[in-house]
């Protein structure tokens, strides 16, 4: 299983990262934006795990970081969704472009 090098995994994670970014920048639904954030976070997770696995297996820092990121992602998603739903009650829309009362 060692023939898959670190670089392959990094390519996957980086690609995933920018796919997430792309989604975040283009999705107009708030919930899908949130989903894009999750993709980005997962890309980061892959990075941490991969680095830990391939380069620094003597400690578990990457692994722990990943665990905490997952936890925080959950908390963040929960709060975000609560806010989005609250917003939805007010604006009757989850289109991000509709929430632009405050600008300039």
């Amino acid at each position, binding site marked *: 299983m060692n023939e898959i090098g670190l670089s392959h995994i990094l390519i996957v994670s980086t690609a995933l990262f920018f796919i997430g970014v792309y989604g975040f*920048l283009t999705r*107009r639904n708030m919930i899908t*934006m949130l989903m894009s954030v999750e993709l980005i976070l997962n890309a980061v997770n892959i990075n941490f795990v991969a680095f830990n696995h391939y380069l620094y297996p003597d400690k578990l820092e990457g692994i722990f970081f990943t665990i905490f990121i997952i936890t925080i992602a959950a908390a963040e998603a929960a709060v975000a969704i609560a806010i989005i739903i609250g917003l939805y009650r007010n604006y009757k829309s989850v289109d*991000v472009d509709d*929430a*632009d*009362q*405050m*600008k*300039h």
Partner: protein
Amino acid sequence: MLSGKYIALIPLLPLASFFLLGLFGRRMKGAAGMLGTASILVSAMLSFYVAYQYFFVYGQADGVYRQITALKYTWLPFSENISIDMGILLDPISVMMIVVVTFVSLMVHIYSLGYMKGEERFSVFYAFLSLFTFSMLGLVLACNLFQIYIFWELVGVSSFLLIGFYYDKPSAVAASKKAFIVTRFADLGFLIGILILAFYGETLDFPTLIQRLTDPASSQLIGITTAGFLGVSALTWGLVLVFMGGAGKSAMFPLHIWLPDAMEGPTPVSALIHAATMVVAGVFLVARLFPVFAISCPVALDVVAYVGAFSALLAALIACTQTDIKRVLAYSTMSQIGYMMFALGVSGYYAEGGLGYTASMFHLFTHAMFKALLFLGAGAVIHYVHSNDMLDMGGLRKHMPVTHITFLVACLAIAGIPPFAGFFSKEEILTAAFHSDKTVFYVALVTAGITSFYMFRLFFSIFWNKEYRPHGAHHHHGEAPFSMLAPLLILGLCSVAAGFVPFGNYVSADGSPLHTEMHWDFSMLPIGVALAGILAAMLMYRKASEVPHRLSNAMRSAYHWSYNKFYIDEIYLFVTKKIIFNLLGRPAAWIDRNVVDGLVNTTAVVTENFSEAIRGMQSGKAQGYAIWFFTGVIGFALLFIYLWM
């Protein structure tokens, strides 16, 4: 004794009078005039005393009149050797001048007691007169080139204040402004001249300066003659510029335009300032620096001569056609000062060569008497007629006999008829010119003829000619009160007697007595010319006739040029209105509002527009923000990883 302490009182008394009258004069009412007169009286007495002491007791050393610095305080130190000092310098001309100034001033003070009686601003008038007298005395006593400038400005402002005395008359206001601004312009030259002389002479002190600039071996003289600008030496520049200041104050062409207008002031003022004293300050200034002019810089002296001669002729020509009696007198003043100037201009320094100098000073002296007399007489006439225009006059000899006689005396004096004062001084001037510069001599001779013509034109128009018919119903007191007549009589006396003073004994270029003799053979020509002028005037104006009218029609264009003062005023008007205001002032104001200030405002507008332009960045849409964020990261990355390392 020639102690500076009491000599200083001569100018300081009028100054004190000025402050007292200025601060408390309103409450004094009539007493104000008495106070002013009293102070000047004391000054005059002191002056006479000083003159006596100087000329007869202390002034001479080894037969030469010395320059005595009686008092000197450092007033404003500029640098180690250049400072403005306040002091008193006694020499023949300054002593002569204080006598003239205090005497004429005293006469005018007395005269004004009657003339200005009942004026609302009576005390102010006396305050200003005192200010003027103080300034003029300070000017003539100055021991320092800059001191003279200071008092020069002060007499200017006194003149301004007095010309504008009737401040609610727009013409008076205009005239006072004109007088001040024209002389200011001339003073610009004076100031720069002072700067040049001070820089190279390394002193402002008169005796030292003159000594340095006349000693061919002095480093200062070498410095100032070798330095130059536009091919003319710095000394010439300096002296010519100083003369420019003198020319402005003395109403020499082309800076004379203010003088006729200055007649808007009360007549006693015209007599004092614009006839007897202030206007001769220019002559005095040249005389003060005469050694430098004569010894080191004849070129500058030539300038003085030609400007003087030309002014004398020009003024005489203009005077022939003016109808305002004070203006006629003003032009005559200008003309006579022209005489004094060119007399200085043609003079040499040593011994007999210095005849012009003596003559000039002599003429200054006699002119002060008879011109003051003329003005005061004219004032009496105006006081009686309530008009300046000679067309409103005529036949006044019956109404005002004293004035008539004294005026005649003055006219004869100015025309140069013996034995009146003017004859002697003019005689000397013509002699000096004859020996030095023939052109100037002929100009002077012609001018003498014209002078007597227009003076008698004036005389006859006022006192003879048609019968006097007061316009309007209101009439009138008799001849002027005693306070006005007394000065007329005294001055009339002086106009006769002054000519007999052996002037050359006391005042000469190099200080040693100069013996002058009458050359009757030479005098015949000028006397003849003067008599011819009188005769012509008598023929034309003794009786009301058509002759003058026909003559003016016959020489229409010449008449118009003369009547319109050769259009010099119009040229000035063009320069000031069109060039200074429209080409400099207006653009400057416009540029300031629109370009310079516009830039400031544009900065603000640009900032605001820029702020408006980037408002789209803050679109209110969260995704837009994220795009900026991401672009920012990428941009920073590119910039800092690839470009800026």
